């Protein structure tokens, strides 16, 4: 056992002596949190929407008023009156405006007659994000027009308040879980993967292998050290990220305790996975090449950036076996939903089993000779 702790001691002394690993592991997730959090965080604002009124009836005026209300309050889009439909469509095509609302002839009459009145919306679907925002806004506008007057107004007002209070932070909060997991992944990738292979290439392992250390002691030593590094990265990012995103979870001792248990689970899972992948690798280029691929393969399908529910089936398949998924789900449960221990129980179970399983697979593959 002493020999195992000697390995851990070496790794930890190195880790604390040069804080580079810690800084490196937090840089990408923090930059991502700030940039993505702000870039995608805000709702679409001030999109330009052409509006063509071919009806000129009282119901058309209601539509125009509703649009003005959107322009004044939630500001998803502003309307620009157009005289004819073809010019409006052409301008959408050329990108001069982002969409066009067409109020057809006879619209008011159809409304009164209850004869399936419809509004036309022309969108530029090469820009999914803007077009779906406008679509969404129009859908709720149409819903509002279909219903008694009072309720939708209220709903609109509430939505308006939320947006004004937290202009960008919502998405950042959502993203924070991903950033924490990413920091831990990078820590494991560099601290466990790259440094491990570099040490091997430099002959450091040759030095270990001539001592009486057993295979199990060596494997456990390396993995415990890797897990400790990842836990430290995870906790640091939780604190810094929570402060940046304005999340108060870190001030609740019970939530923080759950958080730490979860982070330990995540680091065990990530470490086991990394060790299994690196156990027979000798070439220092391999972990570097794998870094980006794994990042994309594991991070993006995990629900860190976009909800899993929106994925096609095969991508959900990846998400199902991806330890990131459970990490993100657990972290979001604690940070966003405060769902209590039961909400993260399954995530913890998966992470611990996954970590132990990969480690059990990797250990026999580990060579006690060069």
């Amino acid at each position, binding site marked *: 056992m002493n*020999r195992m702790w000697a390995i851990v001691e070496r790794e930890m002394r190195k880790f604390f002596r040069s804080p580079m690993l810690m800084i490196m592991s937090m840089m990408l997730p923090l930059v991502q949190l700030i940039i993505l959090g702000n870039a995608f965080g805000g709702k679409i604002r001030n999109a330009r929407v052409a509006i063509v009124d071919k009806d000129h009836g009282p119901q058309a005026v209601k539509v125009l008023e509703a649009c003005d209300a959107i322009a004044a309050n939630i500001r998803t889009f502003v309307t620009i009156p157009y005289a004819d439909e073809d010019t409006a469509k052409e301008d959408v095509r050329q990108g001069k405006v982002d969409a066009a609302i067409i109020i057809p002839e006879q619209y008011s009459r159809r409304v009164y007659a209850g004869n399936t009145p419809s509004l036309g919306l022309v969108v530029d679907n090469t820009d999914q994000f803007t077009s779906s925002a406008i679509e969404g806004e129009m859908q709720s506008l149409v819903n509002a027009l279909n219903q008694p007057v009072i309720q939708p107004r209220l709903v609109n007002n509430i939505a308006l308040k939320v947006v004004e209070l937290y202009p960008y932070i919502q998405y950042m909060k959502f993203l924070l879980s991903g950033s924490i997991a990413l920091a831990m992944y990078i820590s494991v990738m560099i601290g466990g993967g790259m440094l491990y292979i570099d040490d091997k290439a430099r002959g450091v392992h*040759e*030095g270990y*292998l*001539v001592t*009486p250390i057993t295979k199990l002691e060596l494997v456990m030593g390396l993995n415990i050290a890797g897990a400790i590094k990842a836990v430290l990265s995870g906790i640091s990012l939780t604190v810094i990220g929570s402060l940046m995103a304005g999340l108060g979870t870190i001030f609740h001792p019970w939530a923080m305790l759950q958080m730490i248990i979860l982070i330990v689970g995540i680091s065990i899972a990530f470490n086991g996975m990394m060790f299994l992948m690196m156990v027979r690798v000798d070439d220092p280029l391999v972990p570097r090449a794998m870094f980006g691929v794994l990042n994309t393969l594991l991070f993006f399908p995990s629900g860190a950036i976009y909800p899993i529910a929106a994925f096609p089936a095969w991508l959900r398949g990846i998400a199902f076996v991806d330890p990131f998924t459970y990490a993100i789900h657990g972290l979001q449960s604690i940070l966003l939903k405060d769902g209590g221990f039961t909400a993260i129980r399954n995530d913890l179970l998966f992470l611990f089993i996954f970590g132990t399983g990969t480690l059990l697979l990797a250990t026999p593959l580990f060579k006690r000779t060069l």
Partner: protein
Amino acid sequence: MSVATPATNAINGNGNAAGRQAIAVENIVKRYGDFEAVKGVSFEVREGEIFGLLGPNGAGKSTLIRMMTTLIPVTAGRALVAGHDVTKDSDEVRRMIGVIPQAMTSDPDLTVEENLSIYAKLYSVGRAEREKNIQEVLEAVDLLKWRTAQTKTLSGGMRRRLEIARGLVHNPQIFFLDEPTTGLDPVSRIAVWEMLNNLKKRRNLTMLLTTHYMEEADRLCDRIAIVDHGKLVALGTPVELKRSVPGSNVVEVQFNREDDNWPQRLRALQGVTDVQSQSAGVYRVLTSNGSRTTTQLVEMAASLGEKLTSLSVQNTTLDDVFVHYTGRQLRDEQVKAVNFVMPPRPGVQP
């Protein structure tokens, strides 16, 4: 004792000498796929001696040392280290030995003391003994002053000494060093030699080292095994090895012009056993009687009306031994091995 040429009689050949055996290697083979890096080597190392494996790069020295230190599996044959079979009793072997790998593996981010202490822990050396040992080995390699220095601040020679200290921190019986002075400047190299000699005297340590430096093998080793292409080509003390080469002196001569008849004329001189052509007009003449050959050579040149540009007489060196047994010059290999130095840029003063 006579020089044991090819491997098989090495073990018997050594049997009559005093001292118990620390290492016995019997017909050991290492194959990497189809490539045979070590082709059936046998030798014995006695307790308390410094034994050298001398050979050019790629000869199989590191491969041999790695098999003896349990780092790589043995393909065939066997090796006993401190009485334990390296394949069956690897753990026992590991407890008995200290190893300095060819690459520098001390941790630059850790201090000298931390480097030593972590290794002592890897050998399960208890706390009190650890402190005592660290003090002793640091003293032995003259690094006491640097105890708390970060390893990256040490010079190459000092790092090598630290690694030697590291290999000794658990008081091993047998010490393996793979090219301990390669890459060091001449001054550091001599310091390392002195240190190893002192260690041997004070600790009754058995040492097996590999080198491709003749001088190192000559100055440091009690006995030398010359290895080439994975085979043991000669074995003996430096003196025995040199004596085994016909001729006891080497006359190096340079004529002012090349002539096809020089080798023939040189061979005709008294005592000459071999003539090797170096560059144009330069010859190495192996002779059993250096002074007689030299006198005759000068007379011959005078009678022919030829001029000598230079002339020197040396004792036989291990170089000559190597040439004798392999037909090649170790020096050439060395030049190839270190030929990565960039030439100075034109116009830049060296």
